[in-house]
């Protein structure tokens, strides 16, 4: 539990330069008589100042531009690709989304069951384990092929622990409509809900496997 006065939270954790004169004097008056808030304010200011130690500013290497030009010239010597990289990626995504939709239909209507992330999961230390897949080391990774950090954060915020399955290679971006369509319970909706688009492994959905790493 926090020890500071919640009505002052917005002011307590702002550096001086972000506060107006009015806010500064309001805060000063408050911390004069509130020891907890005074201590919190001091700790915040110290920690904020300590961030100066994070990384010193770098001067860029003078060769950066030369290297960029070198690569550009190299690329210009190559024959043009049959389809542009972005077009190929978009096409792949559409294909993946379509295959996911097919899987969802089979699972949802054919077998009469949807995905079961939380309910079927084994319990580990009182927490449900969510499977999050990552492409295997040897697979040809796309440039945007990664575990969505938002997904990991969301899962963690919801009290799940996160296992990474290096074996899976399939990722499918989900739009809002797909998330709604896939969720068969509130629990699943919470799991699938993302602020900025989720990435859900197809393997997970098709096999319905969650929990311990294989």
């Amino acid at each position, binding site marked *: 539990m926090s020890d500071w006065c919640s009505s002052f939270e917005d002011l307590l954790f702002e550096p001086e330069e972000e506060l107006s004169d009015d806010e500064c004097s309001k805060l000063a008056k408050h911390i004069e008589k509130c020891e907890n808030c005074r201590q919190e304010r001091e700790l915040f200011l110290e*920690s904020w100042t300590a*961030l100066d130690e*994070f990384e010193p500013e770098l001067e860029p*290497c003078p*060769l950066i531009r030369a290297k960029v030009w070198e690569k550009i010239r190299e690329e210009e010597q190559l024959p043009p690709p049959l389809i542009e990289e972005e077009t190929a990626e978009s096409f792949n995504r559409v294909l993946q989304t379509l295959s996911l939709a097919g899987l969802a239909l089979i699972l949802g209507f054919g077998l009469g069951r949807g995905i079961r992330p939380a309910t079927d999961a084994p319990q580990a230390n009182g927490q449900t384990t969510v499977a999050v897949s990552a492409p295997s080391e040897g697979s040809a990774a796309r440039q945007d092929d990664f*575990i969505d950090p938002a997904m990991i954060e969301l899962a963690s915020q919801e009290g799940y622990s996160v296992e990474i399955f*290096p074996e899976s290679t399939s990722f499918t971006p989900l739009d809002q409509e797909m998330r709604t369509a896939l969720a068969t319970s509130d629990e699943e909706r919470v799991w699938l809900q993302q602020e900025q688009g989720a990435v859900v492994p197809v393997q997970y959905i098709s096999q319905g496997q969650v929990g311990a790493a294989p």
Partner: protein
Amino acid sequence: MLATAQSKICGSVGSKKAVKKVEPLPPEYADDIDLQLMARVKAGDDEAFNQLMLRHEKTVVNLVYRFTGNREIAGDLAQEVFLRIYRASGRFEAKAKFFTYLYKVTLNLCRNYRAKAQRRQTTSLSAPRSGYGGEELPTRDIEDPVGSAEEQVSRLELSEMVREAVDTLPEQQREAVILQRFQGLAYEEIAEALNLSVPAVKSRIHRAKLNLKEKLTPYLERGESVA
């Protein structure tokens, strides 16, 4: 070294291709120097791209460095950022400020780098440090300290604590706080770069501050008691 680099740069720009007519910018962006340069790059003017890199290389290198903590990677990813911008210049449309575009490209590359580094380390047995969600983090360069021996130790320790505190923030909070605290962006600019609302950015930064305070308090309190 520098002279060689400069001659290389100039040599590259010297091999020019045909420049097309520069498309006019929308009136709201007509005064934006970066967008003017991008319009020229789109028309095939390589010198404009050189100027654009010169204007932003420091920002990009430092942003990547703060995300990765590795000078070499910062240089490599900065090159990749500019390469992507150059490759996409033919399709570039001035719909927002240039910095928004630049930050988006840079952040995407940083996210991919970190995710790939985490994946690699998931299969590695060495586990020196761990981040949010238990993932291991790429190793960071350590600065050479200055000052007395005691100051050096204390400063190194603080610097390491701060790095760990920032590294182990949830990714979304980390991005927001790096953009605000170290890149000096305003809330509105961060919101544009991260495709978020201003209140969402404020909330992430607020949570990041509380987290950082929590993580650094034991060190700061210990420092006080020692003093």
